């Protein structure tokens, strides 16, 4: 199993009346609530945590892209990756991912990732996402074109990285008469690709066809199970069984010395994440046409509670998060691994409004005691595909 220390870089200092006055921390939550002094400290604290994860032996350190939100302060994940490139040694630097669908100029992503691949000496992993619903409002991108833009931008970027001849690119949403990027990436044929998915079968088929890594987003394990099964099924239809390390579980994790202490300490911060950070209504999450009719039907039928309605007990019991002593967390990962068949954990340790000290304690316990205990899980392709696929 591989372990990623993933960061969202949230802005935790919300006003006292946030819960009653503001429908969401995103899009329309006024940026007057961003205090530049506090924000400045946060960036350096969060980068310190990512760098510390490298020294602790995490296999990867991950950043992502969000716009106009207190949920995450990384409009440009590539800038964060650049900040980490020469201050870390071993961990893969994972941009999970660039929202290529909402980039006006996706060729710029091909160029930046190629540069980062050199700055990291080939430690870069490149995730691609469409961009979340509200970001189509924020960057004036027609959500009905979101999937086409994503697919076209992806194809353009891969071709820009791998072609050794100048070419012309013409697709419905992009036209480039001269594609000839300098530099080319260091890794051959290009940095590994990671694609997060939230249950869309179109995405699963795409990831399976390209043999990329499929990552979940925050959801209960019964739902993640269905996503991973469908992904494995899509791969099966193409005649192969994906390596477990090509299946990534994204999940918040908190470790303390005892179960009692872990739950007591984690509770308010998980509640911040699910009740404040993830307070995003369907009108901003799923703008018209962002979801296909079939994916929207699947979502409506899945019957998932809105995040702000989850109780702490549901967050734990339904597998939205892992909390406990090192032994308990290792056991829980074992259970989930058996149920879901993943070989990659993308752990969120800096949860919501958690302190730096708590984050460091939790990640150190995880690296020191949990990783060694579960390292061997999910390292091999299973002989039989898990039941139910």
């Amino acid at each position: 199993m591989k372990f990623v220390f993933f960061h969202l870089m949230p802005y935790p200092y919300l006003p006292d009346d946030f819960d009653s006055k503001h429908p969401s921390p995103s899009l329309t939550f006024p940026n007057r609530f961003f205090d530049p002094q506090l924000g400045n400290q946060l960036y350096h604290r969060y980068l310190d945590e990512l760098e510390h994860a490298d020294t602790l032996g995490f296999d990867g350190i991950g950043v992502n892209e969000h716009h106009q939100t207190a949920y995450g302060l990384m409009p440009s994940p590539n800038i964060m990756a650049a900040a980490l490139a020469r201050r870390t040694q071993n961990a893969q630097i994972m941009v999970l991912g660039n929202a290529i669908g909402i980039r006006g100029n996706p060729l710029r992503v091909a160029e930046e990732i190629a540069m980062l691949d050199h700055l990291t000496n080939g430690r870069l992993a490149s995730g691609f996402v469409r961009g979340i619903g509200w970001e189509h409002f924020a960057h004036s991108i027609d959500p009905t074109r979101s999937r086409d833009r994503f697919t076209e931008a992806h194809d353009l970027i891969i071709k820009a990285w791998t072609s050794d001849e100048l070419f012309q690119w013409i697709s419905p949403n992009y036209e480039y008469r001269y594609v000839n990027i300098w530099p080319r990436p260091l890794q051959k044929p290009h940095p590994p690709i990671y694609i997060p998915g939230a249950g869309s079968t179109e995405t699963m088929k795409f990831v399976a066809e390209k043999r990329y890594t499929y990552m979940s987003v925050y959801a209960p394990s019964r739902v993640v199970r269905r996503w991973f099964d469908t992904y494995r099924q899509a791969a099966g239809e193409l005649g192969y069984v994906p390596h477990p390390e090509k299946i990534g579980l994204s999940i918040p994790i908190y470790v303390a010395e005892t179960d009692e202490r872990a739950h007591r300490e984690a509770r308010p911060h998980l509640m911040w994440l699910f009740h404040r950070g993830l307070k995003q209504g369907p009108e901003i999450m799923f703008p018209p046409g962002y979801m296909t009719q079939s994916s929207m039907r699947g979502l409506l039928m899945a019957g998932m509670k809105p995040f702000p309605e989850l109780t702490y007990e549901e967050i734990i019991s339904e597998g939205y998060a892992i909390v406990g002593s090192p032994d308990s967390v290792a056991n829980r990962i074992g259970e989930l691994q058996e149920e879901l068949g993943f070989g990659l954990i993308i752990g969120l340790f800096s949860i919501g409004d958690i302190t730096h000290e708590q984050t460091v304690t939790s990640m150190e316990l995880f690296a020191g005691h949990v990783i060694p205990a579960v390292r061997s899980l999910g390292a091999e392709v299973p002989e039989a595909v898990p039941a139910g696929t």
Partner: protein
Amino acid sequence: MANETVVREEFLDMPGGRVHVLRGGTGAPLLFLHAAGGAGQWLQYHELLARRFEVIAPDHPGFGGSDDFPEVEGMDDLVYHYLDVLARLGLERPHVVGASFGGWLAAELAVHTPDAVGSLVLLSAAGLRIPEHPIADLFLMTPPQLAAALFHDMSKASAVFPPDPDVDTILAAYRDMAGLARFSWAPFLCNPKLERRLHRITAPTLVVWPSEDKLVPIAHGHRYAELIPNAAFAQVENCGHAMYFERPEEFAEITTEFLAMGAELSGASR
């Protein structure tokens, strides 16, 4: 009010897919271009118009019972689509009545091919960009917020916004909104070039606006009336943007009176 008109449901086979059409009444032909909501619905407003006109109400691509027509990507394509629909229906100079998004479309059609429109009625039409009077962002509204933005008399809203919609109803509404987004996400519900082209319109034109329009500010109505040659302007008091959902009799009466009066003048014909 009981329907007195026999309403016929038709599908037009076009090269890019099928267009769903409701048709009823007799008289001069009247092409009705629906708003973001209302595709595939024969409402009291249509029924009242059908007493004097042959009302022909197609669903736009991606709306109601019409196919997606993915190649109809923007308003310019939509205008060509409707020129094809008019030809397919054998209509040369029908009256054209458009509401909200459909009003924008009607104005674009009359700008593009002035001779194709016998007379024109714009009901709280989108389409203009007036930065100091922005159109409200209906894409960002929750269903209760949208209902409040559309209706002045909230007691009329429940017919349009059922309290507990089933999955199919939600998906149909999501599809209609996706149809709208395709033509109007950015630039938002407008064509910045439309304003300077309105002088091309030759059809007798009536611009109608509800007094309490919280979606498309009435300044847009005044701008249309000012820039379309010889356009008349009428206001319906105590009514929201939902217009003929909210006050069908008034809207039908104003529309009918104008079209009947102007019919000979305009030369509206098949």
